[in-house]
């Protein structure tokens, strides 16, 4: 079993400068989190909005520096504050951001978006770059003809798939996905989740998968880490967490998940009709 990424007691504080009106303050976004992900496995991170998931994701993806603790990639400690990650290291770890539109340059055609990582990080010749980008577009369910379109010409879900395609261009060993399917309709969601499962099988990829959707987590995760206010309040195998959630926040998550149960819909519709009748007099 080889561990691809390991976090040891990771900490991230944000210091917000003060002003005349307001004293400086520190936000403790991540307060000492430890985890390990093996090759070919998926760690899902769930948790309340603002609990530090994206912050942790950026640290794991080597774009933000932890304030404390240690990050190891394939057993080697990495500190981007001391040494810039090498091209090879950069290719190994890729991230899909929570906000796909913000992470796409509006003036860059989609084809260029996909070819750019190859251009920057590898010596792949131009014709091959083009072919691989086209193949990848098709893999994420978009027609190859969209190669020359700009980001604003796509729907929300289509842009999300472009962001996933870009992250996959360098054949990473670790992919950090920050809410990758939450903007997608069910059928595209299924398509993307199946694609991720296929790629994981084919390339033995490790995923750190952030999601607030428990049904998705149950489908994709091997291990689950539940965050609340910067801390890991629950951590374990998917089976254990789903069978017997320990922390009140995890239980609350289960309770608040909407259901498509027919009796529940019937009851709700009846309640609304009664309320309308009462209001209408």
């Amino acid at each position, binding site marked *: 079993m080889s561990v691809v990424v390991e976090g040891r007691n990771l900490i991230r504080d944000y210091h917000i400068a003060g002003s005349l009106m307001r004293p400086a303050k520190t936000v403790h976004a991540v307060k000492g989190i430890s985890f390990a992900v093996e090759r070919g496995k998926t760690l899902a991170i769930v948790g309340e909005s603002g609990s530090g998931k994206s912050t942790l994701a950026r640290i794991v993806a080597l774009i933000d520096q932890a304030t404390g603790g240690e990050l190891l990639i394939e057993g080697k400690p990495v500190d981007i504050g001391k040494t810039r990650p090498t091209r090879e290291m950069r290719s190994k770890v890729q991230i899909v951001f929570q906000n796909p539109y913000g992470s796409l340059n509006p003036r860059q055609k989609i084809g260029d978006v996909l070819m750019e990582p190859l251009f920057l990080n590898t010596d792949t010749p131009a014709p091959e770059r083009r072919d691989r980008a086209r193949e990848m577009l098709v893999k994420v369910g978009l027609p190859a003809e969209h190669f020359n379109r700009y980001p604003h010409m796509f*729907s*929300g*879900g289509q842009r999300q798939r472009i962001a996933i395609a870009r992250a996959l261009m360098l054949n990473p060993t670790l992919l950090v996905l920050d809410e990758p399917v939450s*903007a997608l309709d*069910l059928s595209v969601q299924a398509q993307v989740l*199946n694609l991720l499962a296929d790629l994981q099988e084919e390339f033995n990829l490790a995923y750190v998968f952030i999601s607030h959707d428990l049904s998705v987590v149950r489908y994709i995760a091997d291990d689950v880490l539940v965050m609340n206010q910067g801390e890991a309040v629950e951590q374990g195998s998917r089976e254990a967490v789903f069978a017997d959630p320990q922390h009140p926040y995890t239980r609350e998550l289960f309770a608040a998940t*909407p259901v498509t149960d027919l009796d529940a819909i019937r009851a709700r519709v009846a309640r609304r009709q009664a309320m309308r009748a009462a209001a209408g007099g």
Partner: protein
Amino acid sequence: MALLTIRNLTVRFGTSTGSFTAVDGIDVHVDKGEVLAIVGESGSGKSVSMLAAMGLLPDTATVTADEMTFDGRDLLSMTPRQRRQIIGREITMIFQEPIASLNPSFTAGYQIEEVLRLNAGLSRKAARARAIDLFEQVGLPDPEGKLKSYPHQMSGGQSQRVMIAMAIATNPRLLIADEPTTALDVTIQKQILDLLMELQQETGMALILITHDMGVVAETADRVQVQYKGKKMEEADVLSLFENPQNPYTRALLSALPENATGDRLSTVASFLEHEAQP
């Protein structure tokens, strides 16, 4: 009592490779106090049809419709000035991709107070107080502190809640919410949906909810409209839709729910439709 009526809406985009029909003859209507959910395939024209109603599409879009009225007023023949009196006040929208629709150079407080002063006519002081109140209602922690935060200093779900607060700030008569809770965990999603339903019941606000979450549909909608490739496939009251979906695409959507996964791969619409087509 139709509040918004759209008949035979078509939206075409001119692109380098010719014209592309994103919305193909769609009807939408919503009554006062009603919750209409619009669901459908990614790229099926859900956002574009609502942006067309708001008059917010770029110049490359050609919009035609047989009718587009809000509360009896004709949106199509209105001057841009008249339209601005309605859009942003009586009709507001929570945009998909909230983080991209906040201005990165201004604090959240500045942006919502601007809306409250310009579109709700509040004084600077009243706007500040109301902003704090709204931030509280959408469950933002430390509402006063958040007024002074820039978008990049907030998490995804926090930005989304700022957008929601801005959209309900003017007590609109119609709120169009495009995937409003995608960045929120279920506990906060529940809080937001409860808040919207409460507003809706108190003020008679109509709500058009674009969502891919069938659970959210089941728990909020009165009526559901299913779109596929720019066309309306099916329209039904919420119970009938779940109980007895008529259209193969709707059945496919329901079977793509992760909780309905069979084996180790999820059913996709394409595979489902293929399967259904076989005798």
